[in-house]
């Protein structure tokens, strides 16, 4: 039983870390939702696209090589250079800002004043579009992120816990890095939105579009900034997830993992995204651990596995029935 407890604690800690990775995606959602009331389904695809672009630029791939080859019968694939990591990251950020500008210019501008549900569906369309463009541009095969990110088991924690409990916890360095980055992001985003002029403008827009417009805040530039920021967060999330599981199209499915996180934390709260992520991450790992263990099988007569697919949603669903605005969301007030 003591062993089981230790395994359980290990699962819980790993769950916390995975939860932080979910939060990285959820953060981008919250930013955009706060500033424009748009529920951006494309956030996960943006992460995929950013990661693909980073790898592509760094390894010197020719964009749309596949399509060009098919159209003209050529055989281009690489420029034949490898860029340093910093340059590639900066270029990718540039691409994401360009993307933000394009989205504002060609999509959001035309959808001002539409119902939220229409905007949501537009972002689903955007997600499909981006996924297709990303695959066409950089190819659909699984790629590896080539950045100096620490990975593998953390020896210090392993040996420390071995000394204390007689069982070494397996905790991945990548997860620890991701957590530190996420915490850093949350702190800097909070400071940014509290103390900088642009941050104040962001909050004003989030509060009331028309009032913000009337005091001279340009909605359109704010939206470009917000989408650019979300693109940057997507890049961070894409790099972290890419380092964890390889850059591949299933990466876009992390959106679906971020959704229950958002529901738990509330759509409008940046700290809520982190805490919601940790609850979901820990909850699903611990639940999986409990229901797949042999003593659960003995007690109930059956065991379950692969519950991670749905646990987060069911947890969020049950939670919402009691608190419809999420943990930290603003209270929903409805008037006729």
């Amino acid at each position: 039983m003591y062993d089981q407890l230790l395994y359980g604690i290990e699962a819980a800690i790993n769950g916390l870390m995975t939860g932080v990775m979910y939060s990285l995606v959820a953060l981008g959602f919250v930013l955009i939702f706060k500033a424009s009331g748009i529920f951006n389904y494309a956030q996960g695809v943006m992460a995929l696209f950013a990661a693909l672009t980073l790898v592509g630029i760094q390894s010197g791939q020719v964009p749309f090589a596949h399509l060009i080859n098919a159209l003209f019968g050529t055989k281009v694939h690489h420029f034949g250079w490898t860029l340093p990591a910093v340059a590639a990251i900066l270029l990718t950020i540039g691409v994401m800002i360009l993307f933000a500008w394009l989205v504002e210019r060609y999509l959001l501008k035309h959808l001002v004043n539409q119902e939220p549900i229409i905007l949501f569906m537009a972002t689903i369309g955007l997600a499909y579009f981006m996924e297709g463009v990303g695959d066409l541009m950089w190819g659909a095969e699984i790629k590896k992120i080539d950045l100096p990110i620490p990975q593998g088991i953390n020896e210090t924690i392993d040996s420390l816990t071995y000394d204390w409990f007689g069982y070494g916890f397996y905790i991945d360095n990548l997860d620890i890095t991701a957590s530190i980055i996420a915490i850093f992001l949350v702190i800097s985003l909070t400071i940014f939105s509290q103390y900088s002029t642009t941050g104040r403008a962001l909050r004003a827009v989030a509060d009331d579009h028309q009032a913000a417009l009337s005091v001279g805040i340009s909605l359109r530039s704010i939206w470009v900034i917000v989408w650019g920021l979300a693109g940057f967060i997507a890049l961070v999330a894409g790099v972290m997830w890419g380092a964890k599981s390889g850059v591949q199209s299933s990466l876009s499915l992390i959106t679906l993992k971020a959704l229950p996180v958002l529901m738990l934390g509330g759509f409008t709260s940046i700290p809520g995204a982190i805490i919601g992520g940790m609850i979901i991450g820990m909850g699903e790992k611990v639940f999986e651990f409990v229901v797949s263990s042999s003593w659960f099988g003995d007690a109930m007569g059956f065991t379950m596995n692969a519950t991670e697919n749905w646990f987060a949603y069911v947890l969020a669903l049950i939670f919402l029935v009691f608190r419809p605005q999420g943990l930290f969301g603003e209270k929903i007030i409805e008037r006729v």
Partner: protein
Amino acid sequence: MLYREAGDFKKSYAEDSQTFPLKLDRYGYYAILAIAFLVVPFVINDYWASAVLIPFLIWSIAALGLNILTGYCGQLSLGTGGFMAVGAYAAYKLMTSFPDLNIMIIVLLSGAITAGVGVLFGLPSLRIKGFYLAVATLAAQFFLVWLFNKFEWFYNYSASGQISAPTREMFGFEVTGATASASSKYLFCLVLVVLMAWIARNLTRGRIGRSWMAIRDMDIAAEIIGVNPLKAKLTAFAVSSFFVGVAGSLIFTVYLGAVDVGDTFGIQKSFLVLFMIIIGGLGSILGSFIGAAFLVLMPVLLKNIMVGFLGWPSDIASHLELVIIGFLIMLTLILEPHGVAQLWRVTKQKLRLWPFPH
């Protein structure tokens, strides 16, 4: 000149409120029905049936179902795939447990079972609204698919984890199974589609449909004027799930014959149906058909053009398909957020007044 109501006198209230008040529309509708029932079954071949017509008919039913929930009642659902899986597995269990039961009854019964499950997952909609509800319906999607994969009872402990449909007959013609002919499968689906569309049309213009629309437009105001939100929302979930369940059971029994739940009823299918009703038109029966036709035909067409005609590799074709679908969705929403059906409505109005602008 043709498109006029002049001379088409209505002598009763029923005639006045009929679905196709214009003569041309009415005759057009009868003509389409006649062609669909009397001509197509004799000229249909296997390729057309399995690539175009049967999927179109089945997805139309699913789109009708989702349109009732999302377009008419305003409850955004991303759980369509999961509910279709319920329909398919219900049909499978019914077919294997009661071998003598008529296939039509099985399909309708599995729709009814899905309706029950839909009501269950619709219960939270009384507390949760908007996006929160959309995400909550994802719980249904993932949980149901997982459930059918996990518990062997659902697929009768078969080794592959797949379910496959045994042969069943209707009036002496095989409609399910490997040997069923294209035309009998097609006719079976067609009968159900006409029936379902008729039900949907008459529900949505009656008392229930009006209460759905009241809830959609503003639920609090609807509650104040005396619409019972519990009843309205749950009936919407029930009816919608019934349609979706019938579509799911048809996909399994008639169209595919064998189903692996994760592939056939995954989250992608939920989005597919959602796209159908967005492009076709939210809150429109005709729109459901247009959307289904569009999203069934377009991939076939694109594939034929790009792979068959231009000779491109199929992975490029599938990526371009994503790009085109995404682009079209954004374009539809920008140009006409109410879908192609709204364009049709505008065109009809213009035609009636032609050559005058107003």
